[in-house]
């Protein structure tokens, strides 16, 4: 087993990386995601205006040399709000998926590994969660938990959880039949050791792909919740809440609605392309 774990895995990994690197689309996805990620991380260091500073003399100004992307209804610099808003969007995407992974993977692992009654109970529970539409569940949860960015992330994470339960369960059931699991059991390893050391590492690739694609849907979900007023609260910037305000000034200041939407579009597209690229690189059927 140790030969299999230490000898073959790196070769599979470099083969996947080679495949990923040769796909121009996947690299474009990585570049888009990287660009927005750097922007979000570097927000405090960039020479941009204070995203919360209002100016009554600069209300709803079209893009100009002073304000590259224009100003909003309170005279705030839109470029600066866009950059800081990237933090809210990307944090929402990553934290939501982390919550979904942290809850969904262990539950799916239990269902797939033990089977029988545990599996049946968890599967019915997952069916029930999947019957409640993602966005409706997120809206209902955010409403009951109270509106805030953190609660929106919890709501989105919990709504995305069943996808990971189901994926993990299916993958574990396939891996469970492998000889090396039989071997691990034969040398007397406990369930927890088998699950964490032998099962989990072998189901990581499909989880990475699904996590990347779910970041994309989570970013749209966060923007949707913020657009409805259930996410990031004013005056802190988020692309969704910026669009919520912008829709009231469509004819006077259309640029207010243009930039946040374009940003969501590109970052979500970036994650979608990256996810597709990772799938092509990691899917063993493609080799």
């Amino acid at each position, binding site marked *: 087993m140790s030969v299999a774990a230490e000898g073959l895995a790196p070769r599979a990994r470099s083969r996947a990386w080679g495949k990923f690197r040769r796909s121009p689309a996947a690299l474009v996805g990585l570049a888009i995601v990287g660009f927005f990620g750097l922007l979000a991380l570097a927000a405090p260091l960039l020479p941009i205006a204070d995203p919360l500073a209002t100016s009554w003399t600069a209300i709803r100004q079209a893009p100009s040399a002073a304000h590259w992307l224009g100003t909003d209804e309170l005279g705030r610099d839109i470029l600066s709000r866009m950059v800081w808003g990237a933090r809210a969007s990307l944090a929402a995407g990553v934290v939501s998926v982390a919550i979904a992974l942290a809850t969904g993977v262990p539950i799916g692992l239990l269902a797939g590994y033990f089977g029988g009654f545990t599996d049946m109970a968890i599967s019915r529970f997952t069916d029930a969660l999947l019957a409640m539409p993602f966005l*409706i569940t997120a*809206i209902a949860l955010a409403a009951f938990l109270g509106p805030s960015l953190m609660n929106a992330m919890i709501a989105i994470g919990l709504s995305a959880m069943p996808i990971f339960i189901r994926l993990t369960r299916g993958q574990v059931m396939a891996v469970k039949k492998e000889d090396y699991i039989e071997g691990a059991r034969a040398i007397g390893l406990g369930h927890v050791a088998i699950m964490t050391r032998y099962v989990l590492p072998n189901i990581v690739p499909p989880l990475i792909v699904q996590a990347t694609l779910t970041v994309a849907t989570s970013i749209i979900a966060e923007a949707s919740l913020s657009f409805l007023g259930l996410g990031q609260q004013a005056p802190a910037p988020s692309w969704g809440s910026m669009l919520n305000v912008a829709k009231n000034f*469509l004819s006077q200041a259309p640029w207010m609605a243009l930039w946040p*939407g374009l940003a969501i579009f590109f970052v979500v597209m970036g994650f979608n392309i990256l996810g597709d690229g990772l799938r092509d690189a990691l899917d063993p059927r493609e080799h």
Partner: protein
Amino acid sequence: MLRFVLKRILIALPTLLIVSILVFGLQKLLPGDPVLALAGEERDPETLARLRELYRLNDPIWMQYLHWLGDVLKGDLGMSLRTNQPVLVLIAEKLPVTLQLATMSMIFAMVIGIPAGILAATRKNSWIDWICNVVALSGLSIPNFWLGIMLILLVSVNLGWLPASGYESFFVDPVRSLQTMLMPSFVLGTALAATLMRHTRSAMLGVLSSDYIRTARAKGLPGRVVVLGHAFRNAVLPVITLSALLFGELIGGAVLTEQIFTIPGFGKLTVDAVFNRDYAVVQGIVLCIAAGFLVMNLIADILYAVFNPRLRTEL
């Protein structure tokens, strides 16, 4: 066949029961004393005690659930705190509006998505395939509420071609009804069209590489007959069942679309209920949608088995 249907129903019932427990559990998430939330400004201890009695909040939680479930089974989803109407009546009033929006969106998505998927599959790796894929990827990545805002800006504000908001029942004024629903259903249908296109493409690619297609081509059938008569008939089934399963996504998307175009449907009801803290309405909506989704699931499963008898014994 009857046994198969009964078996599917027997699996769906416990799922529905768990949904009901989850929906009931939602109200327990509310921070603080639910009676204070219900009473609003009222702080008179006697009133509070009466409310506590009325909503059986002194009972153990499982008793509360059973009472609530009993009411739900009798068709009583509670009363709206704001309008004082039964929740079921509110939902029944708004449902036709959202169903019209959902149906038009689905038709739109199928008319665009399925032919595009066939075209992309038959011309795999050509520039047509590439364009179809890029357009589908964009459709999946564009936030539909932003697409709605941009369309209003372009089509209504700048060009003045279509109304930006409003709703008219199809049975009162069909022309106006279609006019007001055209943009919303385009907006709601975009992501679905993209999903359908991708699935049609991969289903068609799977079928097109099979032996019987090679045989059909070998015996000299014209390309169109092979693609539409043989391949598509076999590839369309998973796509049709997928459409039934996309119902949930459609209803979720309708919330935002109705919000943008001020359409008085299910989605608007949800958002208003959320902001009025009208929790019984929110619960009722989630329960109804989940039940609807399970029914759609069941229909999809049955349709699948009807058209594909091989599955009946396996499931």
